């Protein structure tokens, strides 16, 4: 375990070096947050919806704040696959999957916290109707945090599946373009899942993408009651395990037939 913990903390350290990137990300996400909220306010002004606007605004802010958790990939690993430097990682006495799972989790954790904390502080200070709302209860906040943790575990497992596919295609761009589209659509980043028609919601909230941020946000805003928390967290855990098992299988299979690029 020590090795994986060390890989995790190493990646934390490294991610902290990219502070300028984080600042750029914050500005970009704040801009997107404001534009999206202006859009939904206009929509509500012309045609009020059943879901309160405050809940949509909070949804948008939290989703934007944790954008880096959804869409970020280990560029080091991609480079290593492309150039063949992965050879070094293959001669370490660790599970390659576990090693990269730890690294990717650390990257997503720091990447999103570096941006989320200042962004949410900013979003609290905004005027009424624009600001991020408080959690419905202390219990809801605790459940949302647990959900966020599981969301991180789930998105990391998902990323490892993507990487497993990339190992075969060598270049990541084609696969990534497709998967990113699915990600922004079904994670609620493009349009809050709470605004989809009810019949759609019944299906898309079961997909793995909804387990990342949508599930914890619904607990936070009280859109799902605290009594539903065990079921929600259970579904998150289930998807995490399923994706981790799939990823592990793909990686194992890949290593048996790997070739090292670049001589």
């Amino acid at each position, binding site marked *: 375990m*020590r090795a994986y913990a*060390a890989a995790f903390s*190493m990646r934390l350290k*490294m991610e902290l070096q990219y502070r300028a990137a984080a600042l750029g990300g914050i500005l970009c996400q704040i801009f997107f947050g404001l534009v999206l909220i202006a859009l939904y306010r206009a929509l509500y002004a012309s045609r009020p919806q059943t879901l309160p606007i405050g809940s949509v605004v909070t949804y948008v802010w939290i989703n934007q704040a944790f954008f880096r958790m959804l869409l970020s990939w280990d560029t080091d690993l991609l480079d290593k696959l492309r150039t063949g430097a992965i050879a070094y990682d293959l*001669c370490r*006495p660790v*599970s390659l999957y576990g090693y990269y799972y730890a690294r990717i989790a650390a990257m997503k954790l720091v990447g999103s916290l570096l941006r989320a904390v200042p962004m949410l502080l900013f979003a609290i200070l905004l005027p009424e109707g624009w600001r991020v709302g408080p959690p419905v209860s202390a219990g809801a906040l605790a459940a949302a945090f647990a959900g966020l943790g599981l969301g991180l575990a789930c998105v990391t497992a998902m990323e490892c599946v993507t990487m497993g596919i990339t190992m075969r295609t060598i270049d990541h761009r084609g696969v990534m373009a497709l998967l990113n589209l699915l990600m922004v659509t079904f994670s609620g980043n493009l349009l809050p899942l709470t605004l989809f028609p009810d019949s759609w919601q019944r299906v898309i909230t079961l997909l793995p993408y909804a387990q990342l941020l949508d599930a914890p946000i619904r607990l936070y805003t009280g859109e799902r009651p605290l009594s539903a928390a065990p079921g929600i967290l259970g579904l998150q855990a289930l998807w995490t395990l399923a994706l981790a098992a799939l990823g592990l299988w793909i990686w194992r299979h890949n290593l*048996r037939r790997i070739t090292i690029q670049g001589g």
Partner: protein
Amino acid sequence: MSYITVTDLGKTFTVRKKREKGGPGREKTLVRALSQVSFQVEKGELVGCIGPNGAGKSTTVKILSGILVPDEGSATVDGRVPWKERREHVRRIGVVFGQRTQLWWDVPIIDSFRLLKEIYLVPGPAFEKRLSELTEALELGGLLRTPLRLMSLGQRMRAELCGSLLHSPELLFLDEPTIGLDAPSKLALRDFLRRENREKGTTILLTTHDMEDIAALCPRVMVLGHGRKLYDGALTGLLSRYDTLRIAHVRYADGARPPALPPDCALSREGDTWQILYHPAQTPTAGLLTLLQSAGAIQELTLQGQNVDHLIAAMYEEMAL
């Protein structure tokens, strides 16, 4: 049983090439990287492995370090099959790929070293001792807090080597470790490797294109070409077969020119120095000297053998590589 036993090892890669005349799809070609390679290495040996580009050297190293799975044949290192008992195997070995990096690009190298310490579960005191030993030998003391990206190639190479040796491996694979190094760095590196081998009993398998590496380090050399083993034995034994030519440089005090020489000798001129290529088997050196002296008073005379690189080139040519 030997420490490393390789029997009839074979590996084929599929290479997809673009078709020559446009057209859709790609041509698949099979490249036989290794075929029926067998050898043994005993514990504590220092073996060099040479061969032209694409001869199968790196493939051999990758198979023996558990990265690649061969298609045919078998290999064991210390009784283990590298690609089957990968984790147990790699715990005991160190690998340096001269053209790649294992250290983290953006962080100080000491952080990378500490990560390696955790990966190989090196106990704290043993790590500190080994680190100070290695930083001294590789002259890395002042660089530990420097991120890798700010280092020169030579510094980086020494850092890579340090990283590969932190867990005191009993077997070391070096794939072109002196690539791109300047002369002092090369000498220091060779010196260091020799000491590791002698004092710690580390078994070393080295691939290189630098014949000086081989001449300085390896009592035993293997030649690979087209995926086959072509020679396995002492370097001197290998060279003596091709080392048939000597070069004499002669300068006369009064600007005289050499007399007529036997037909196997080739004469050329560089300024006031004459260069004679000859085959000692046909024209013994003593006979040639007598002839040269007959033309006038010799002011300066040097005799030299061929450059090792020339010999290797001649050998590759004869082996049709």
